[in-house]
């Protein structure tokens, strides 16, 4: 994957009055307000070209292919699907060919969401501070200068919670984001994950970020502080038993999705959230097996004693 060469500046307020307008209108419950209809029309005009699946060009500087296509079916379902394109992009983009200066735009997720209700839900400020410590923007990191929110979260597709989607699909989608750049990780021989037992099974059921982020205070939130390979969790038991917080995060997250999708009864039967080994506790296991073993020994001895006594009686 290549990065879209647009600058992303975290924390710079952009004060999008029109966004607030749209939200306000939506909140007033006016159905499809005029603004939204106007947005639709404008989006349609942009999509005339950008809906082309192969719209792309080779960047003369990086020599990489820059994909400009937007999936028209996914856009309306994305978090930003209601917005007109120029709510985020410069107005001058409405002309074609697009004027050169239009290319130097910058976006600010946190800036937009600073004052709105989304902040309470998504805690973008926390996200920002976590992101700043992420390995992706650490000094000296490859592409650090070009890395931004959109490197992972395609703004035209991204939606927050996909309650109702198949868990495996959620995991796949989530991991696809990482693997689209970290292609080498896929290589079964070379891969940095060669150490991980049942690697593919893990990748099918655990998100990359479950191990590559620090355990956050709230179990259901995944931190945006992506860790270096060295700092990431390599400890099997951290998930597969002891660390309650990590276990909680993983299991509760999966449980929630599962419940939403399947309903109570099916959930009860299939419980997709169960994690292999989550009930493991070496101590309990050992003590219990020891007691069971001893009991078996005692019972066997007891039975033997009864048998001997019985034979003695018979002989008499």
């Amino acid at each position, binding site marked *: 994957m290549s990065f879209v060469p647009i600058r992303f500046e975290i924390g710079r307020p952009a004060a999008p009055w029109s966004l607030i307008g749209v939200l306000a209108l939506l909140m007033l419950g006016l159905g499809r307000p005029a603004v939204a209809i106007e947005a639709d029309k404008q989006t349609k005009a942009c999509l005339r070209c950008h809906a082309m699946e192969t719209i792309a060009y080779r960047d003369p500087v990086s020599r990489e292919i820059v994909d400009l296509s937007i999936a028209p079916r996914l856009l309306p379902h994305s978090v930003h699907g209601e917005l007109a394109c120029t709510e985020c992009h410069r107005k001058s983009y409405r002309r074609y060919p697009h004027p050169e200066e239009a290319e130097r735009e910058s976006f600010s997720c946190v800036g937009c969401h600073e004052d709105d209700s989304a902040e309470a839900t998504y805690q973008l400020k926390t996200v920002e501070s976590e992101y700043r410590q992420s390995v992706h923007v650490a000094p000296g990191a490859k592409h650090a200068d070009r890395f931004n929110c959109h490197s992972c979260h395609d703004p035209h597709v991204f939606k927050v919670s996909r309650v109702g989607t198949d868990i495996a699909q959620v995991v796949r989608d989530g991991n696809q984001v990482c693997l689209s750049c970290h292609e080498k990780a896929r290589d079964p021989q070379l891969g940095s994950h060669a150490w991980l037992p049942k690697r593919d099974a893990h990748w099918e059921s655990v998100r990359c970020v479950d191990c590559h982020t620090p355990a956050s205070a709230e179990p259901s939130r995944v931190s945006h502080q992506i860790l270096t390979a060295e700092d990431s969790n390599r400890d099997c038991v951290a998930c597969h038993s002891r660390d309650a917080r990590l276990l909680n995060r993983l299991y509760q997250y999966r449980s929630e999705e599962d419940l939403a999708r399947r309903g109570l009864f099916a959930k009860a039967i299939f419980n997709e959230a169960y994690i292999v080994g989550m009930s493991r506790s070496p101590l309990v296991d050992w003590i*219990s097996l020891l007691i069971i073993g001893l009991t078996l020994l005692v019972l066997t001895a007891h039975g033997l004693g009864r048998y001997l*006594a019985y034979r003695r009686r018979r002989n008499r």
Partner: protein
Amino acid sequence: MKALYLYPGWLRIWHWVNALLFILLMVSGASMHYAGTPWLLAFETAVPIHNAAGILLTLGWIAFVIGNVRTDNGRYYRLRWRGLAGRLIEQSLYYARGIFRDAPHPFHVTAEAKFNTLQQLSYLGVMYGLMPLLILSGWSFLFSVYLPETLFGIGAVWVVAMTHLATSYALVLFVLVHLYIITTGETVLTNPLAMITGWHRERHTPSRDA
């Protein structure tokens, strides 16, 4: 020879259904807990079996409680406090010593009391102590999202998991002991047969032994 009809049909059915569910739960539970062990079930197979059996076990347990309340079967579980300790010691001594010397059973099954005190105590503990714990922790697993995030300052899922694990082990222990103890009737097969036919038969009358 005496014959007592101790186990009515509903109870026998319940018992054997319960037994079957226990086997299923132990096998599938072990398969989940020790997933990846070659001779156990596949994880994906074990999960629905375990969950379905668990749900049925819950229903069975509720049926058991209701059955004991509504019929006179409940009386067997009523402890007679007077002389309890004495009877316990007597019964334990029998298992530890008398049984090898062909000593008489200190307890005689009657229509009024079919469990000896030791039996009574262990059944009480299992049915009203371990089973509810097991069932509760099992259901908590399934619907953990409705639990608080922490219990006693520890992650709720972890508490649930450990409770479920510990009670499971305890119940495995119970099953093992149970399987052995039932062979200590007048003959090895006296008790198991009784649970199949409903009739408790003893060749020796208590009077002759006494």
